[in-house]
């Protein structure tokens, strides 16, 4: 197993490794503008194309947030239905993708608020996983079936232990690659709050994954 260990120093490579090519502060024309216009004009299929264009990011975010593939699919459907119902009101003040993230984030947080209030629920998921149910840490993805499954499972489990308020910003930043400003817009919180939550989330994850980090340290030094 092995993953790149970044040495200390300016830049340390973390930013360069961010999954998105988006650059902060740059105003880029929204690639969805044309589709949104056609959708508003009533063109059949325009909304479906928007769904296809955004399904990966919505499902990715919701998988990280909900933990369960089943629930993520459920909430992803709710997200797009909600978009279909209200999305025509989108006025282009932000990128459509930001708007999509916002709807998905709200759907996820609302769902968890109601159904995820029990600590035992998380434990229950683990039990169901052990039983081979359709669960977050079941090796469903082809990638998971490789040697990285243990690592992946640990990281996913650690993410699930974070409160949604911390998990959402760190997922949006470190995994989905959004900028601080975008996350602030998605979650309707101040940019400074976004940064502090990401910092706290990383610290909590660091503690949670400590044993793993130590192990990988040894491996990486080989």
């Amino acid at each position, binding site marked *: 197993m092995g993953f790149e260990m970044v040495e*200390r120093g300016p830049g*340390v490579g973390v930013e360069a490794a961010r999954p998105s090519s988006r650059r902060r502060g740059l105003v880029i024309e929204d690639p969805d503008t044309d589709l949104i216009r056609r959708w508003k004009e009533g063109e059949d299929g325009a909304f479906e194309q928007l769904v296809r264009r955004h399904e*990966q990011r919505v499902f990715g975010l919701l998988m990280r947030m909900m933990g369960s593939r089943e629930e993520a699919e459920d909430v992803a459907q709710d997200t*797009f239905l909600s978009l279909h119902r209200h999305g025509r009101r989108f006025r282009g003040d932000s990128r459509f993708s930001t708007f999509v993230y916002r709807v998905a984030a709200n759907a996820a947080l609302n769902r968890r608020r109601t159904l995820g209030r029990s600590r035992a629920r998380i434990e*229950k998921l683990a039990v169901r996983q052990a039983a081979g149910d359709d669960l977050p840490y079941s090796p469903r993805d082809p990638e998971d079936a490789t040697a990285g499954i243990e690592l992946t499972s640990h990281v996913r489990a650690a993410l699930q232990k974070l*409160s949604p308020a911390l998990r959402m910003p760190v997922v949006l930043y470190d*995994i989905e690659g959004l900028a601080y400003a975008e996350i602030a817009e998605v979650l309707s919180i101040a940019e400074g709050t976004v940064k502090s939550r990401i910092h706290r989330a990383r610290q909590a994850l660091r*503690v949670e994954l400590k044993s793993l980090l130590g192990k990988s340290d040894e491996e990486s030094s080989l």
Partner: protein
Amino acid sequence: MNHSDVQDHMADYLEGHLPLEKRALFDAHLDDCSNCFGEIREVQRTITLLRSLPEPEVPHEFAESVMGLVREREDRASWTDSLREALKLLANPRVLVPASVAMIALGIIGGTRQVQDALPIPGSSPQFAGQIQPTEDSRLAGIPAPGIWFERAPVNRTRRNPTLQIRFHSDPVLANLLGPIRVPAYPVAELAPVFSRQFLRNDGQLGARWVADGFIQGVSPGQTGVLRVAAPTQGGTQGMNAGHVGVGNSTQTLPLESQPTPDEWLARLRRSPGDFASLLSNSSLAEQELWIANLTRHAMERGELNEVIAALRESSSKKANLLAEDFAAGARGPIADGSRLDDPRSDNSRIPAHD
């Protein structure tokens, strides 16, 4: 630079956003402080691990399933959508929702205790007050003039239908006001959402229970009933033309007696936990909250909570298993009122819940 500074600037350092001068100071501190050096390295690795997570695979034909749902929904009558959406908004307090295409009938049935059992949980769950907005038509039907809580709604001259507005309160002060307040004309009704499916199975109607808080149309204080919201009809083919809206429209009344009592619900839950959980999962989130809270309280009063939880846990239904934990959580403390964003797991001090 000290350890606290390192904490403050760690994110900027990791991303190369620190000005040159500060970065030099940061590096100098790392040279001298093995703790900070170790911590920075661990955070870097944590970030690398996060970014190494494989991208989840989108469910097969996901877009098709979404579009199928979209088309299905478009086929349904728009008024039910509006109203269902309004009920869903219980999770967002202080929302004023006009369901402008709804027509209201008030079916008044004698009071029973079961409605009391279904009333909101003090201080925990969202409460809302239903307000009937009289229009010319409703006044024709004998519905009293508005009181202080009732504003005149614009008359929909096309449909000539009354308007239902639902105001949600999470504010404890406002919520408390809803109980004792006396309104000269219409009573402020305390409404608790019920399974919309129960009503949907009868002419596709939605409804909510209410309790009278004053004399109205022959109903004494404390009496209970069912507030009915019926589909608007242009031509009155269902006997619901605007001019006929009002109290005692028997064709639109769902007898309260036909609703199971809380005891019956508990019995049904214990008999078929999977079916119950499945039924509950089809309700709105707010409805689920209220039902779980009410039934938890009811089961506790009857001393049956453990049996209920056990029945749910032992069920082969995943939904029932999860519901068991919701009941258990409800028994441990107030049901989440929507203000708790954090997962209970965050209660530990390692992950602060607030900024």
